[in-house]
């Protein structure tokens, strides 16, 4: 990582435990018990386990891991769709866990937006209204909403589909709408939770290219979740690898490919080598 870039998101010793006895479970996990022991003793599931990382301004930071490794849980901490059991999360140096509901809403409206794996589009609204949603929610004028939305609709190749409804579009088209909605909100940070995982390989590659192309001019901070190392290597400036809610390795794609930290990472890399 380039040391001169200030960190945009700072995660410090975050734990997330699901279940009613989370306090006990937290104490156990801090005594270095394993995830399975905690589950057996308290019935609580450990989502994120003592995780710290920092994400730089303007980088594409990929969080990778198998399903159940806690990557989707982790990314939802950044806009507080999920609150941690313990730990601190700083965005632009501000502790977002201190925000009250109103401050949190303002933060979500202006600073951070999100793209979802199964799109999360509003089925009763047209493509145009879906793309403009973030702007409308924060109270922008109708004219501005329409103008910004149309700009991103055109940029993402959705021209002519403005008045269609989500169910009339293909998967790839729908995710373009999801991406356009996040971009139209014009936030510094975009979270992408397995945004391209539901798409077929060709469309996926096309979307990856488009994202990289746009990032050249946009310089957004993008947190990208995937379970696919190829995708991670292709688009990531840096990659973090998660297993059982723990951070195993962080590094550039080159670091990950050439010096995997342990067997788990190595297996990802080996599989890729075989596939290529």
């Amino acid at each position, binding site marked *: 990582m380039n040391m001169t870039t200030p960190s945009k998101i700072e995660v410090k010793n975050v734990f997330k435990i699901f279940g009613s006895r989370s306090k006990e479970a937290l104490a156990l996990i801090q005594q270095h018990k394993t995830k399975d022991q905690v589950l057996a003793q308290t019935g609580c599931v450990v989502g994120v386990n003592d995780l710290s990382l920092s994400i730089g301004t303007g980088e594409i930071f990929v969080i990778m891991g198998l399903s159940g490794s806690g990557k989707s849980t982790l990314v939802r901490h950044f806009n507080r769709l999920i609150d941690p059991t313990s730990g601190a999360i700083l965005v632009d140096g501000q502790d977002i866990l201190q925000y009250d509901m109103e401050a949190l809403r303002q933060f979500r409206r202006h600073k951070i937006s999100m793209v*979802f794996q199964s799109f999360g589009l509003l089925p009763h609204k047209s493509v145009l209204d879906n793309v403009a949603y973030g702007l409308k929610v924060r109270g922008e004028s109708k004219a501005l909403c329409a103008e910004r939305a149309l700009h991103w609709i055109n940029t993402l190749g959705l021209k002519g589909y403005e008045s269609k409804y989500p169910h009339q579009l293909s998967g790839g088209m729908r995710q373009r709408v999801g991406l356009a909605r996040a971009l139209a909100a014009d936030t510094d940070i975009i979270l992408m939770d397995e945004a391209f995982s539901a798409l077929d390989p060709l469309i996926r590659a096309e979307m990856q290219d488009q994202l990289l192309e746009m990032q050249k001019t946009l310089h957004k901070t993008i947190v990208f979740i995937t379970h696919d190392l190829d995708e991670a290597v292709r688009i990531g400036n840096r990659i973090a690898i998660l297993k059982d809610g723990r951070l195993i390795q962080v590094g550039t794609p080159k670091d990950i490919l050439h010096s995997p930290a342990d067997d788990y990472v190595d297996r990802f890399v080996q599989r890729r080598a075989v596939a290529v």
Partner: protein
Amino acid sequence: MFPERFTFSVADWVNGWVDALVANYGDVFRHISDTLLWAIVNLETVLRMAPWWLVLAVVAGITWHATRKVTTTAVIVGLLFLVGAVGLWDKLMQTLALMLVATLISVLIGIPLGILAARSNRLRAVLMPVLDIMQTMPSFVYLIPVLMLFGLGKVPAIFATVIYAAPPLIRLTDLGIRQVDGEVMEAINAFGANRWQQLFGVQLPLAMPSIMAGINQTTMMALSMVVIASMIGARGLGEDVLVGIQTLNVGKGLEAGLAIVILAVVIDRITQAYGRPRHEMSK
């Protein structure tokens, strides 16, 4: 034989409570009763004074707006014409007025309660058994105290109807909101939508088919109460069914019964059509 020493009765206690309620709050109930009565009587007068062809034209207009189908509209108007043709037009209008007011009150109570139940699991846990009781308790049990509080006539009939007819709307509103896709809710949350924006922008529109099914059920159940309503002095089609039973006039009872069914079919078609999402229809 159940041992005597374990038996007890709440009947006296309930009787005392109802008596006290009537004695102390009679005026309040009388006031509510008068207001309601005023609303029903006015609506009824308007419906009965309106020329028959105007009523049919309005129904035709609503049906056309809801279904966009010529045949359905024609059949519905034809059926209502038939009710008029057997001489039950006036009673039909009385029943319609009673039902519309009961449905309106059910909607005013049911939709907000359904929304609250969808918000809070605790409220839902309390509400659901209450709704079960409202639906299964024989209506005569609560008709007696309602009669004591409001007197004979249309008002107790409306109360009995609302108690019986509101539960499905509450349930289906709750269900409709809970069934809104979790990822959609997550998405609008992630963009910072506040509670009003969530409720009116997304939850209610997406729950609309379910809510309309609830309103449909409410109207159907309200109609099934018209005979009982007529027993406590509400006029209308139920009255003719009742008289038909009492005088062994099977033909008369059947005519009125069929008129109730026709009214049910008309309202069912219209509310169901409004329950279907628009843009999917024109796909």
